[in-house]
């Protein structure tokens, strides 16, 4: 007897099938055809057993009843887990920035703009930490964003001190998202004994990086290189991580990324396509198709494999890793984008420089480009998501199992939703998946990774080491 499942084609007429509990198999097209036309009785015994172990088939009516109960229970487990409120608290001390990146994702303000317009009022910091203490539980995760937060290092310090006093000295961790251009010995000394890690951007080798990440009057790449090196040397290699926004300039040169990571001593890559938020689209730079992006990703993975085979250190790629973990690791939901319900508000509470609070980083970007909407969930002294009908709508509609398109997609148990991207692209959170950048990107990533995992043993062992590191 067949139990319900979804299917998506891979290459070579194989199919990826999955069910509500999150089991998956890769099967030949003829197996599915036999199953559909003649039932499971005609299947090879080994295939039949393999499918039964994953709750795709049941051998009796009692087995069917138990199988359905197990599918329902597995789905309930996923839902309950993804519903948990465990936010990262993002704080934006300033929107001002010394860079003028071409694809700026967050929207920025000029360095010389008025502090009163774009900086957090220091007197608000106790309220900020108070909100965090009320909403969160230890260990608290704080992420300081910008603009360029180190423009107001004084605020970063004040936030840390307040957190230390209110949240408990060892009960929180701070990630500072920064271009590192302003990193100096004072900041390094300060960070040394504190629970601080730096997250920065590296978009390729010097030429590629500097073409997009522009530091007027200076060399952005040399700055970030010096910063990364200094942190690695003085604080340790695990205190800095880098993300890469794949621009059109990098697209044809994945090897530039391997080169840059070698030069910078980084072993974990985190590559992402240019985000559709902020001013990236409006400025008209870096537009390319997802097919181009996947061709880039394919070459990058092959380079990683070759690099390791040639005796180099294993490089991991975080985007690939989280897609794989969603598929292979029951209970993994550590990434706000790949969750259903989405990570909106459940995984993120963002406190903006002006005291407004948002349910995600994307929501504040969306707010910047749509000033006529209210996408906030209150202010730091009056947090109230229930008061904004937009929040109600977003949360209610962020379950992919009932989204048209996702409903029948085999990646649904592992995928997620991004309601803000839906609003940004299509004016509402659900949207038409065939036109959704979120869907195009994630569907390609899932099918690419799974296809390669099951087809290419070398790639598989590299992917396994990503997941088990």
């Amino acid at each position, binding site marked *: 007897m067949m139990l319900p499942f979804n299917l998506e084609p891979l290459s070579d007429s194989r199919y990826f099938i999955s069910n509500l*509990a999150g089991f998956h198999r890769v099967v030949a097209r003829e197996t599915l055809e036999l199953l559909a036309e003649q039932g499971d009785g005609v299947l090879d015994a080994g295939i039949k057993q393999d499918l039964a*172990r*994953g709750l795709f088939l049941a*051998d*009796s009516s009692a087995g069917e009843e*138990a199988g359905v*109960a197990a599918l329902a*229970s*597995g789905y309930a*487990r996923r839902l309950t887990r993804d519903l948990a409120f465990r936010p990262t608290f993002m704080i934006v001390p300033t929107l001002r920035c010394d860079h003028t990146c071409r694809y700026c994702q967050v929207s920025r303000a000029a360095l010389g703009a008025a502090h009163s317009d774009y900086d957090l009022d220091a007197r608000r910091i106790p309220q900020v930490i108070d909100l965090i203490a009320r909403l969160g539980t230890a260990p608290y995760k704080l992420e300081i964003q910008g603009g360029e937060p180190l423009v107001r290092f004084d605020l970063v310090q004040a936030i840390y001190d307040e957190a230390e006093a209110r949240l408990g000295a060892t009960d929180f961790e701070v990630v500072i998202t920064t271009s590192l251009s302003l990193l100096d010995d004072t900041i390094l000394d300060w960070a040394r004994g504190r629970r601080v890690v730096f997250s920065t951007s590296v978009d390729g080798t010097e030429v590629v990086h500097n073409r997009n990440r522009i530091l007027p009057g200076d060399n952005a790449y040399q700055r970030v290189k010096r910063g990364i090196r200094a942190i690695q040397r003085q604080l340790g290699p695990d205190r800095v991580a880098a993300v890469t926004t794949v621009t059109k300039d990098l697209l044809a040169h994945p090897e530039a990324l391997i080169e840059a990571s070698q030069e910078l001593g980084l072993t974990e890559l985190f590559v992402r396509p240019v985000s559709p938020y902020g001013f990236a689209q409006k400025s008209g730079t870096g537009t390319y198709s997802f097919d181009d992006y996947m061709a880039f990703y394919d070459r990058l993975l092959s380079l990683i494999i070759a690099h390791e085979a040639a005796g180099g250190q294993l490089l991991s790629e975080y985007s690939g890793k989280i897609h794989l973990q969603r598929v292979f690791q029951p209970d993994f939901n550590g990434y706000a984008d790949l969750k259903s319900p989405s990570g909106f508000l459940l995984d993120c509470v963002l406190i903006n420089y002006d005291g407004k609070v948002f349910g995600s980083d994307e929501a504040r970007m969306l707010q910047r480009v749509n000033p006529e909407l209210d996408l906030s969930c209150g202010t730091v002294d009056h947090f109230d998501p229930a008061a904004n009908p937009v929040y109600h709508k977003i949360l209610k509609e962020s379950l992919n199992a009932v989204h048209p398109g996702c409903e029948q997609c085999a990646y649904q148990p592992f995928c997620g939703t991004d309601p803000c991207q839906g609003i940004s692209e299509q004016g509402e959170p659900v949207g038409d998946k065939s036109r959704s950048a979120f869907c195009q990107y994630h569907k390609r990533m899932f099918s690419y990774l799974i296809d390669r995992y099951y087809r290419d043993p070398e790639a598989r062992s590299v992917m396994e080491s990503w997941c088990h590191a």
Partner: protein
Amino acid sequence: MREAIRQDVFAVPEANLVPAGCWVLRKTLPTTPDTWLNTLLVTGNGTDASSSNAGDICTIHSPELFDSIEDGDVGLVNGRGSVRVILSRRANHNTVLVTERCDNRCLFCSQPPKDRNDDELLMQAAAAIISFAGNDVIGVSGGEPLLYGDAFLRFLEIVQTHAPETGLHVLSNGRAFADRYFARAVAERLESPVVFGIPLYAALAEVHDTLVGAAGAHADTVRGLINAGNAGIPIELRIIPTQKNLQELVPLLELALRCFSGLQQVSVMNLEPTGWARANWGQLYCDPSLYADQLTSMVRQAEAAGLPIALFNYPLCHLPDTLHPWAVQSISDWKNYYPDTCSGCTMRPECGGFFSSSQGQFHQSPRIIS
């Protein structure tokens, strides 16, 4: 049987004068009598050697027994001249047997089921647990304890009311929890820490049903595990690798991680050569080296999901080094021993050793670790 570390059965010839049943064992006469069990005063060397049999309090003389018990331990007198210490303050683990009946017929059952009515055992066990009044966990085993249905609910109520400090670990095949209402009724009665140890041997129904000798058992136990977990009953999932379910180990763990709630721990247990396992040893026992990869993968998966996993009853030299951190020294002290060849082994303090029942064809020798 080989000599185990702690002996639990004592031949006391005059005990045949003592009525069979559970007795609280005293070394001195208590001022207030026990309300749950009759008192058996045990005398040792240097004390009055006379035995007596007077109503609620009997006396027997046995220096050997006297030296092996603590005041207030519970003994089972068989009426044929022996006393078995069933609840001992010196033991690392105590278990009471509440029935020998079972709706499974596992090929490796250590307590092969009997169909006779033994209802009296349940309340006797309750009395023993309450009289013992320990604050450790006591194992409740069978047979299948949940066959008692509503009587088991009363057992839980009584034990938890009168021995609130005592935790229980109930070994059950979980089939009774296929009835969601029963699972809820049990969950509602859990006050002190109670964990249910429930075995599932395969993701595939046919493999589990073969191992437990009962058609339909897999469907019941799977639904039982789901219902119990969803009702909030804490569960220890028990897996015994055999030749028949090696292919099942990894998929079974995936099933557990994806579909079951309420799991406190996964316990993988090396086959124990007792009961029917001795008769079926040749077709069941599997050398751990043949499934070390599966164990490694299970440990990895469980750890990634944050579910504790432990490997029980494995001599350390039968496992690859990488799995040693998950092996626990677990064999109850009354059935554990170390052969002579272990004497020079540096891992002995951490090693569980062997079952004292393993000998001859059942014994797997210690291995030299290079």
